């Protein structure tokens, strides 16, 4: 029983990590005032690139680096379209997702059915074997520790660093930031590229660690959950972590209850939960008085056109 619980918790952590990585990236993007709905597409690009490079070269490290680069390349396309050419962000983001699904299927066609070794788990002799705490705290792979460190890093960056403050300022009022002398477009490019990097990393985690395989459309809506998560967490990094583990937990619970017939709740209801939570948060925010208390960037989704 104890073992089953530990195993369950470890699965929750694994299920939560891709959500956390992608959502952290999107959080930074949205804090700069840009709404990139292409997370799903960028994740797929990362997943297929990471897998293909790892299979071809045998180096998972190289695979992860290339996955991040692929995510950034997708994000750069989005940036050129929305930031330089002022295309509509929502439409461009949706297009990016659809493009990512198609492109990843094309690239990944030759890699379906190949299996690889998952990323190595951290294994400290004598410590990892401690019952319960050992495997729970010291039995994961590097990306999981990275995701938690990145949460702290993003939180620190936004709250304490000057570039982070500038980024928040750009998302809060692009006009003001411009008139004080900040390059709004450049700041947003950086944020969008970071978002792509993180989505690519999330994709790599899926195809190299979570299920070390390439399956067409393997993100299965996780990009959308990540987007929802950012709103659910009201644009705060530590709450994204909490939300990711919560949503991850719900996913696992749903799978487990399906298998074990624990509750008399249809599994479809369980898989709806993250979205229901998001709709609730969005409704509360749109009701008005809550907007700023909930931390929504004031310029979210508004294109910025500097005066000459």
């Amino acid at each position, binding site marked *: 029983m104890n073992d089953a619980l530990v195993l369950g918790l470890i699965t929750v952590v694994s299920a939560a990590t891709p959500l956390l990585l992608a959502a952290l990236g999107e959080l930074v993007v949205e804090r700069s005032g840009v709404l990139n709905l292409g997370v799903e597409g960028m994740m797929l690009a990362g997943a297929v690139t990471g897998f293909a490079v790892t299979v071809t070269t045998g180096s998972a490290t190289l695979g992860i680096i290339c996955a991040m680069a692929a995510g950034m390349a997708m994000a750069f396309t989005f940036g050129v379209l929305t930031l330089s050419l002022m295309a509509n962000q929502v439409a461009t983001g949706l297009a990016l997702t659809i493009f990512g699904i198609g492109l990843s299927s094309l690239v990944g066609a030759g890699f379906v059915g190949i299996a690889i070794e998952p990323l190595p788990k951290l294994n400290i002799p004598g410590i990892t074997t401690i019952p319960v705490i050992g495997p729970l705290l010291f039995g994961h792979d590097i990306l999981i520790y990275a995701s938690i460190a990145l949460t702290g890093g993003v939180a620190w960056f936004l709250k304490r660093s*000057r570039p982070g*403050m*500038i980024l*928040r*300022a750009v998302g*809060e*009022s692009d*006009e*003001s*930031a411009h*008139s*004080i*002398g*900040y390059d709004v477009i450049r700041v947003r490019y950086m944020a969008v590229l970071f978002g792509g990097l993180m989505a690519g990393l999330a994709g790599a985690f899926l195809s190299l660690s979570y299920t070390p395989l390439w399956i067409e459309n393997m993100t299965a809506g996780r990009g959308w959950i990540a987007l929802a998560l950012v709103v659910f967490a009201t644009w705060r990094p530590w709450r994204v972590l909490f939300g990711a583990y919560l949503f991850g937990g719900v996913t696992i619970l749903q799978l487990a209850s399906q298998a074990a017939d624990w509750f008399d709740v249809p599994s479809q209801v369980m898989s709806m939960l993250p979205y229901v939570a998001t709709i609730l948060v969005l409704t509360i925010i749109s009701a*008005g*008085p*809550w*907007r*700023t*208390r909930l*931390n929504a960037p*004031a310029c979210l989704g508004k294109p910025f056109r500097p*005066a*000459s």
Partner: protein
Amino acid sequence: MTATPTRLELRAISKRFPGVLANDSVDLNVAAGEIHALLGENGAGKSTLVKIIYGVLHADEGEMLWEGETVKVADPHAARNLGIGMVFQHFSLFEAMTVLENIALGIENPGDMNALAERVIEVSHAYGLPLDPGREVHTLSVGERQRIEIVRCLLQNPRLLIMDEPTSVLTPQEVERLFETLRQLSTEGVSILYISHKLDEIKQLCDRATILRGGKVVDSCDPKQETAKSMAAMMIGTEVRPLSQREGSSSEKIRLEVQGLNLDSDHAFGVTLRDVTFSVREGEIFGIAGVAGNGQNELFQALTGERPVHIAQEILIDGMAAGRMGAAARRRMGMCSVPEERNGHAAVPEMSLTENFILSGYGRMGLLSSGFIRNDAAEELSRRVVKDFNVKTAGVGASAGSLSGGNLQKFIVGREILQNPGVLVISQPTWGVDAGAAAAIHEALFALAEKGSAIIVISQDLDELMALSDHLAVINMGSLSKSMVTAKASIDEIGLLMGGLHGMTEHQPGPNGGNANVV
């Protein structure tokens, strides 16, 4: 060269925007420690010029000299490094961030945040502009927000401070306090470039004035030697004719009655209206004064029906309960309105003037016939507005957004007046409009009142209200003061009502607190 060295010199600065020459070979000299006024109507090119100095815009031609040396100001960072600070007319602040963060964002080397917080407190108190670094900006009054901008500049030890229309949002007491700060800075050797079109302020404060008209320097003068009237003449180019003096309405017929109106705000930083009561008679112009953000928007929405109130009896139009009606129903009862924001509220910028006429006037002017739009009739009426109100436009098919601010405002006011409203609610009738258009709009309102309409003018421009209205009340934190007869009201009293809760109570109005009408 005079005894004081020249701090800033502009030589033949020109700047062209599509279709307009905003600055036409402008020369300007500002001496060390001088308070120099830049005077001109809206659209004269003042803002463009200072944005060039501050590096927000770049001149097409011309040369800028800083303390005798030619400089190129690539961006605001470069300007700040030279020692130029600027307080914008529309503040460049971030509402959801703290005072300290806002200040740190606007200076070059903020250093340690705790040390900066101490310096903010120190400097802000030294200049009589107290600020709490930890507060978030959205919780502050407009006057306090301006302090952030000023303190942000002062922390960089500027040698030239540019102020773009700093007093348009302040109470008379706040203006007086600001002037003390500026005089103190001037004695410390800081040059100040002060943009305004309020002539009495320039007379009080400035050592020299350069007057711009149509992008060119047309004159310069010593404001203390001039009268407000002579400066206005230089600014506008022709003698200004004084506004007609109104005799109050003698009718007893009440056209609009507002009785104990309450309305909760619909957004986080809005103002809740509490127990607003007033009435406006036939032929009366009723002014509502107040500092921006004290419930004017909410009151406008409640009056026009954009947000119906809960109790019908709280608003009576010609004696009929209208509180729960929407805007269209109130229009049918004869209440027309002109909101503050021209583009996007009063008019759809992408649509033609005719279409904009139809949107507001279809009901009252019978522009629909069995559900179809009568385009010819609408065009005819739009042409009438253009002609009667002297709107400069390519034609009634031109998009509303293509008109200049003043011309669009004339069209919008004309559109509502042509519908012969029983009650007209108008917010900021001459905001950002040049003097010629403002005079035309005022005349039109007088004429409408003559015909028996009741007019409610919501404005932050006290001079305008003093000239227009025969009764006046002040809105502060969502409450409306008692109505007073304009001719008997004192500016000091109005100022105190306006500033009620902004921490100014201990501050006595200065000898110049009372501002006479400009002309």
